[in-house]
């Protein structure tokens, strides 16, 4: 057994070094590739969104993003259905009982919540966006969770509610993705887009999509962590 382990490690090391050598010798990246500036400018002007990443993510490649959101939903569904009624006992005691932690959490939570809201609302004109915003919001809730103990929060927010929020915001994303296009143009396009790039009220469906995605990611990430906390994990 030990000899086999040593052989495995050796072979793995050889393969890893070989991989490095092969990849670095042949990757041969071009020094400087020209960006298609006209195309990017066209994207920016057509969507009216000054954050090009948001424009690409939520308009040009919205089709990808839809599937990606479903990947996220699959994970949440899996975590929920596998941890919901498995044998793990619920934790009764709070994770941390230190006063410092508790007060720090109370002070930090509003700041984190504000940051999350900013990221989601201004996602089309500044860095951030729905994914970042939702994840930051979930992190803020985790802070509270650390301070109060998960059961306190769980008594206020039911898992079923989270499930509905998640499903409905996903439905909203689908609706905003499909309906405007179906009514006024091509499917999965953003006919309401336009406006002055950099303005808050620009980008047609994109700000709404950002908000909905933030809701969804928040609900999903929170549900995942909630179930992890409840199921006293022991790996």
């Amino acid at each position, binding site marked *: 057994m030990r000899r086999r382990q040593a052989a495995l490690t050796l*072979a793995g090391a050889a393969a890893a070094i070989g991989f490095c050598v092969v990849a670095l010798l042949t990757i041969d990246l071009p020094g400087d590739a020209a960006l298609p500036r006209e195309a990017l400018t066209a994207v920016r002007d057509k969507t009216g969104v000054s954050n*090009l990443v948001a424009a690409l993510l939520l308009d040009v490649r919205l089709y990808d993003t839809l599937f990606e959101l479903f990947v996220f939903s699959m994970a949440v569904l899996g975590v929920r259905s596998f941890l919901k009624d498995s044998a793990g006992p619920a934790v009764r005691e709070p994770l941390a009982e230190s006063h410092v932690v508790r007060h720090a959490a109370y002070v930090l939570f509003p700041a984190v919540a504000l940051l999350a809201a900013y990221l989601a609302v201004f996602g089309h004109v500044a860095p951030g966006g729905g*994914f970042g915003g939702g994840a930051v919001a979930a992190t803020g809730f985790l802070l509270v969770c650390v301070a109060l103990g998960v059961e306190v929060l769980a008594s206020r927010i039911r898992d079923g509610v989270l499930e509905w929020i998640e499903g409905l915001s996903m439905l909203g994303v689908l609706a905003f993705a499909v309906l405007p296009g179906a009514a006024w143009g091509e499917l999965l396009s953003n006919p309401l887009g336009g406006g002055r790039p950099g303005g808050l009220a620009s980008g047609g469906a994109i700000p709404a999509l950002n908000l909905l995605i933030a809701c969804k990611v928040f609900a999903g990430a929170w549900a995942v962590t909630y179930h992890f906390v409840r*199921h006293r994990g022991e*790996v």
Partner: protein
Amino acid sequence: MTTGVVVAVVLFALAALALVARRDLVFKLVALGMINGSTVLLLVSLPRSVGRPPIAAGPLAERLADPLPQAFVLATIVINFAVLALALVFVMLLVERYHTTDARRIEQLVHEEEESCSSS
């Protein structure tokens, strides 16, 4: 070639080695996370995707970072979170059953159980 690309390849190789050499499932999952991280790093460190942030209301900056890999990478990060969370759930359930995180031992235990099932 940027430093980021080299580091990404090295990280990938390191994590692959850990996948082969480490038997503990937690380390395997950490290695998977690093593999995902290295692909993200590679996409963002391509020569064309290093530059000024692609956010501009006016004319586009001279040395602009390519926004397309960034859009890809955002998707990838979310997908990786999903994969890792699910894998971790399964590891937790397996540990509850077999009380070990050693991949080889779990394989043996599963096999033994199947044997005893089919022989009875």
